[in-house]
């Protein structure tokens, strides 16, 4: 066997091994996700009165690396870092699991960000009513974290991939998802029947649907909660 044949074999072996390792890692990563199994009839439906409670639902469902579709008037991605991170202390340092530290700072504005920091959520598609989406588009245009393409905005909040869109511009998401729908989404009088129908088209594999009335948000009118109740009926068909 001459040297260049040997070299050819070595190079090919390296490339094959590397490609296999990458595929293996990708498969392992996808396999690590944990989201509820699909029931025969429909997605598991949860009802909460405040957004913070959604985090508790995620926790009980033992979510890990879930993809979330989030319909609201807010993104709920206000960032948060536990104060323990920047507090000098003497050696030896007490190093603890930071997830409970993040949970201590949970509120209605940051709960989705915290769900990503604690590993429950790995990707978010935020769906805004059209009017609010246009305002958000103008707001995010100057943020390097996001890039705008037509009626979708893609970017990151820290290590969390985020997509912002309207219900119509939301692409079809084939993978299993968790959907949150907040009363705030109906503040601009969206049609519940249309939302339910369109959402089923866009997200064919919804494993959990969390309906939030956001009773702790004074700016959400009661009319929006009535529309949310209507949405719930139309979604479940009851």
């Amino acid at each position, binding site marked *: 066997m001459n*040297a260049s044949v040997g070299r050819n074999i070595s190079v090919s072996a*390296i490339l094959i091994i*590397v490609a296999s390792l*990458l595929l293996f890692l990708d498969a392992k*990563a996808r396999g690590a996700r944990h989201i509820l199994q699909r029931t025969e009839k429909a997605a598991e439906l949860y009802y909460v009165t405040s957004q913070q409670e959604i985090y508790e639902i995620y926790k009980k469902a033992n979510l890990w690396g879930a993809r979330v579709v989030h319909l609201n008037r807010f993104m709920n991605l206000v960032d948060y870092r536990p104060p323990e991170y920047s507090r*000098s202390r003497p050696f030896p340092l*007490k190093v603890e*699991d930071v997830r409970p530290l993040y949970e201590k700072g949970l509120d209605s504005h940051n709960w989705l960000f915290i769900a990503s920091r604690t590993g429950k959520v790995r990707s978010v598609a935020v769906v805004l009513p059209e009017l609010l989406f246009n305002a958000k588009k103008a707001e995010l245009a100057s943020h390097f974290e996001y890039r705008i393409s037509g009626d979708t905005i893609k970017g990151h909040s820290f290590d969390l991939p985020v997509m912002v869109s309207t219900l119509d511009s939301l692409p079809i998401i084939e993978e299993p998802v968790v959907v949150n729908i907040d009363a705030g989404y109906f503040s601009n009088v969206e049609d519940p029947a249309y939302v339910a129908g369109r959402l089923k088209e866009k997200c064919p594999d919804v494993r959990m649907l969390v309906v939030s009335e956001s009773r702790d948000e004074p700016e959400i009118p009661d009319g929006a909660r009535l529309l949310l109740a209507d949405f719930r009926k139309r979604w479940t068909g009851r």
Partner: protein
Amino acid sequence: MITRLRSNHHFMLWGMFLLGLLIRGWGLSEQPPLDDEVGAALDAANYIENGHWSSIMWEHPPLRNIVIYLSAKLFGEYSSWGLRFGSVLFGSLAIPAVGYLSYGLFQKNLTACLAAFFLCIDPLNISLSRQAFQETTTAFFIVAGVLASLHGIKRDNLLFCGLSGVLFGIAAASKWHGLFPLTVSACAYLIYPWVSGGQGGERRFSLRLLSLCAVYVAIPSVVYVAAHTPWLLRGHSLHEFANFQVFLSKAHYYHKASRYAEDYLAHRAYLWFVIPVVWNDFVFSSGRPYLNIAAGNYFIWVLTLPSGYFVVKRWVAGHRFEEGYLLAIFIFSYMPLLLTSRGIWVFNSLAVLPFAFILISYAINSLMNSGKLSLRALVIYLLFVSVISSAMYPMSTFRTLDYPWLRTFAEIYSPHYGAGR
């Protein structure tokens, strides 16, 4: 026997490693943790155990977390040594690595020993070796990668080139500075048979290009990705990983440091080898303040540009591969930092500094060989820079405020001064 030991570069380089280790570890337990080091410890444990992406210096790849975690495991707790051993070890190991790289390039004991000595006593390297961050780790793996690459290229040995791919992958997984020498080494590998004056093995360009893809692209990529395994195991696909890297590159570009660092500390890379520039840290711990002023030894650093010019002239005259390789590594490691519009602070110089020191050592050695520099002058110079580094040692080890004669520096670099601006 002493003469024999002196002429043995292995003995000298490992001797300097021990000296470097001593200097870097001396009184380490008394150095309080910085706020960011506390965060780095939390990041390390949580990254390994549940894939939590760093909160401290989050735009950098995650190797720091792995190094700190392993170091803490070795020492059983996040003590001063448990937290910082990785930095101390790699900061010290870089000393013989630089020496071996110099020797590999020029086969001169004096060049090897001088380069290692300059790194050994460099106050900036000492200071950053005593903090649980990624600077010394990156620098070590870059130098080790270049060393392996040099042997691989010159011997046409795929194994050494593959090893350099692994080392560059580790360097890049620590900080993206590793990508610059990786690129230069890959190009050097590609063109070596045609620029080496009749040497160098495989001359079929297509096979050489394929080999390059395997050892300088595929291997570093898989090592880089593997360092992200805990994060990937949060469910992220490789597609999401790739998108995240694009986002991180933007985060790097738009990075802003604290107001004090942006407004008050020198943050342009062109200043490094022209005037003394510093990085400083302040911490209040156990009822007293600590101030660290980390700067290079100006009397060594200032020789970089003249030495670079000297080596360029020699390379133009002789087109020696080794000189060209060293110059290219230096220039392409330095240039991106020089050209960027964002702030680049002096701690970033650690990835460039080893090559600057080799340039200086090579120039000094060449001047001595040509009789333009006497041994006596060199000894006086080395004594002088050693005294300067010794005088800077308290500043580099958080003890600036302990010595009245350092008060002037303390006043100039007081963070309160910056905060009030």
